C-alpha cells in the first residue's frame, strides 16, 4: 500500500503529513460552490448528490476503513429520515436541532446494533446487515400510523434555517444547507481517519486476528466507528427529509443500501473523496441515462460495476492515483 520509507519517522508526524490539506482538496470544495452560479437549474440534483455523498462517506468509514461489509446501511439513513420527518409532523420543524436529534437517534440505534454486528463475520455478517435492513423496512411498513406506511410520511414542514433562510423552490437554501452539513461531516471524518483511531481501524481491516494480539480493543473500535457511521447516515437521511419534505419507504430499501455501496466502489473505498466522486458519477449518469431509458441505466451500471471490480479494484480514484504515481 504505502511506499517503503527510508528513515524511521514518528507515527505522529506521519499522521500529521496525511492530514495536511492539498491544493486539489481546496479546489474541489471551491468547485462544489459552482452549481450556485453555473447550474442553478440543477441545484436540487446537487443537494441530492451532497446527501448521497454524505451517506456514502458514512459507509466508507465502516466498509472502506474498518472492513465491515454491509448491505443494510439504508436502515440508518431511513431511521434518520423518519425521525426528522416525524418530529416535524408532530410540530417541531426547526431544522438544525431536528437534524442533530435525527443523527443522535440513528447513532444510538447504531451503537446497539453494533453489538450484533461485531459477533459475526464474512457471509453471516453480510446476511445480518441485510436482514436487519429488511427488518427495519418491514417494521416501518407495519407501523402504518407512525410512518404512513406505503403512502409515505405526509405533512412535513421545515422551518427557515436560523429563522432567516426559507427553503426556496429553486433549492438555493437546500443546497447551501446540505453542502454545509456535508463539509462539516467530511471534516470530522477526515480528522477521524487520520487519527490513531483511524489507523487502528485500518489494522482491523487488514488483519482482524493480529489487532487483539497487539492489545487493541478491536471490538470496541468497531462498535464506536459503527455508531459514528450510523449517526452520519442518520444525518444524511434527516437532510433528505428536511430538504424534500417527504419520507417514503424507499429511504429504507435494499436498493438504497446496494446503491450506496456501488457508488462507493465506483469512486474507491478507503478514500473519503472516493465516496464523493463515486456519488457524483453515479447520480449524474443516472440523471442523464434514466431520462433516455431506465434499462440502459441498469445495463450500464451493471457493466460499469463489473469493469471496475475486474480492472480497477481500488475504484476510479484509486485508478487515477496509480496513473499519477506512475507518471511521477
Amino acid at each position, binding site marked *: 500500500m504505502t511506499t517503503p520509507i527510508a528513515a524511521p519517522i514518528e507515527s505522529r508526524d506521519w499522521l500529521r503529513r496525511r492530514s495536511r490539506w492539498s491544493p486539489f482538496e481546496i479546489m474541489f470544495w471551491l468547485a462544489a460552490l459552482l452549481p450556485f452560479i453555473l447550474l442553478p437549474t440543477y441545484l436540487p440534483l446537487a443537494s441530492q448528490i451532497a446527501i448521497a455523498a454524505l451517506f456514502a462517506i458514512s459507509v466508507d468509514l465502516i466498509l472502506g476503513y474498518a472492513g465491515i461489509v454491509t448491505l443494510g446501511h439504508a436502515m440508518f439513513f431511513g431511521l434518520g429520515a423518519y425521525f426528522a420527518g416525524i418530529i416535524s409532523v408532530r410540530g417541531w420543524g426547526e431544522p438544525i436541532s431536528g437534524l442533530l436529534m435525527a443523527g443522535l437517534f440513528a447513532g444510538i440505534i447504531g451503537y446497539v446494533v453494533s453489538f450484533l454486528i461485531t459477533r*459475526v463475520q464474512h457471509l*453471516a455478517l453480510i*446476511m445480518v446487515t441485510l436482514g436487519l435492513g429488511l427488518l427495519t423496512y418491514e417494521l416501518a411498513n407495519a407501523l402504518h400510523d407512525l410512518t404512513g406506511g406505503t403512502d409515505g410520511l405526509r405533512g412535513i414542514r421545515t422551518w427557515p434555517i436560523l429563522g432567516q433562510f426559507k427553503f426556496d423552490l429553486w433549492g438555493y437554501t437546500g443546497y447551501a444547507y446540505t453542502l454545509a452539513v456535508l463539509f462539516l461531516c467530511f471534516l470530522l471524518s477526515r480528522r477521524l481517519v487520520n487519527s490513531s483511531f483511524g489507523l487502528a481501524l485500518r489494522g482491523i481491516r487488514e488483519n482482524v486476528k493480529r489487532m487483539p494480539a497487539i492489545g487493541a480493543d478491536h471490538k470496541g473500535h468497531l462498535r464506536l466507528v459503527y455508531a459514528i457511521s450510523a449517526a452520519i447516515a442518520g444525518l444524511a437521511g434527516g437532510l433528505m427529509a428536511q430538504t424534500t419534505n417527504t419520507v417514503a419507504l424507499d429511504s429504507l430499501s435494499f436498493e438504497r443500501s446496494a446503491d450506496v455501496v*456501488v457508488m462507493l466502489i465506483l469512486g474507491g*473505498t478507503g478514500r473519503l473523496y472516493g465516496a464523493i466522486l463515486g456519488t457524483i458519477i453515479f447520480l449524474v449518469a443516472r440523471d442523464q441515462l434514466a431520462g433516455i431509458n431506465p*434499462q440502459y441505466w441498469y*445495463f450500464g451500471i451493471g457493466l460499469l460495476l*463489473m469493469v471496475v471490480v475486474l480492472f480497477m*479494484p481500488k475504484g476510479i480514484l484509486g485508478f487515477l492515483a496509480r496513473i499519477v504515481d506512475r507518471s511521477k
Partner: protein
Amino acid sequence: MISQIAIVLFDGFAFGMLLFLLSVGLSVTLGMMNFINLAHGAFGMFGGYVAVTVMRQLGLPFLAALPMAFIAMALLSVLIERSLFRRLYKAGELNQVLFTIGVVFVAAAAATFIFGTVQQVIILPSWLRGSVEFGGVRFGIYRAFIIVVALIITALLVFGLERTRLGAQIRAAVDNQRMAQGLGLDVERVFAITFALGCGLAGLGGALAVEIVGLSPSFGFQMLVYVLIVVSVGGLGSITGSFAGAALLGIGDVAGKYFWPEIGSFLIYLLLVAILLVRPLGLFGKR
C-alpha cells in the same frame, strides 16, 4: 383450522422445494470456493425464460421444456464461469458481491431487452392443473408435482454425493480445498462441474417457479434474498442443510403471509437474524 394448517404446510413445503432447487447449487459452490455468487438467481430467471420460449416457439411439451432449461443453464454457466467468475476466486468477498450484483443488473437489462417487462405465463398440461381432495382439503396437483420432482432430485444428489467418484471429490473439495488440491485433485475442474450442475438446477427451479411466483426481469432480485437466506441458514456446502433451510423458509413464509399478513415478512427476517447470531455458520454449517 386443521385443514388450514395442512394446506399451509403443503403449499409452504412446495414453495420451499422451489427454493431448494434454486439455491442448492449456490450452497455447494459457496462451500467449495467461498465464491459469493449473487447472480445465482439470474440463472433461475433465464431457466424460466428458456422453458417459456421453447414451449411457445418450438411447441415442446412442458415435460421436455424442463430438461431444456436445465441443460441451457448448465451450458451458459460453464461459459460464464470460465470467462468471468474464475478471475474472482481470489478476490475479496466485497468484490465478489459487487461483481455478481453487476451481473444481476446486466441480466435483468438483457431479459428486459429480449422479452420485455411483461409477466410471462406458462401453459401447464391439463393433467397438472386443478387439485385433488384429500380428507376434506384440496391440494394443488402442480404443487404436488414440484414436491415429487424436488424429492427425486434430492435423492439423486444425496446418492451422487455419497456414492459416486465425483461426489467424493466434491465432498473432499468442500471439506478442505487446499488439502484436496495437495492430494492431486483438480479442484477447478470439480468446481466447474459442480457450478454447472448447480446452475442447471437453478434453471430447472426457475422453470418450475413460473407458475407459482411468476416470471419477469426482476426475478433475479426477488429470489436473491430468499436464496441467500436458505444458503446462510442451511449452512454452506450441505445439501441436507439447504433442504431443511429451504423447507423451513418456505413453510415459514407461506404461514407468515397466511396467518399474520401484516408482519409475516418481518418475522422471517427476525428469525434470520436470530439464527445467524446464535449460529453464524447456519443451522447445519460445519466450518
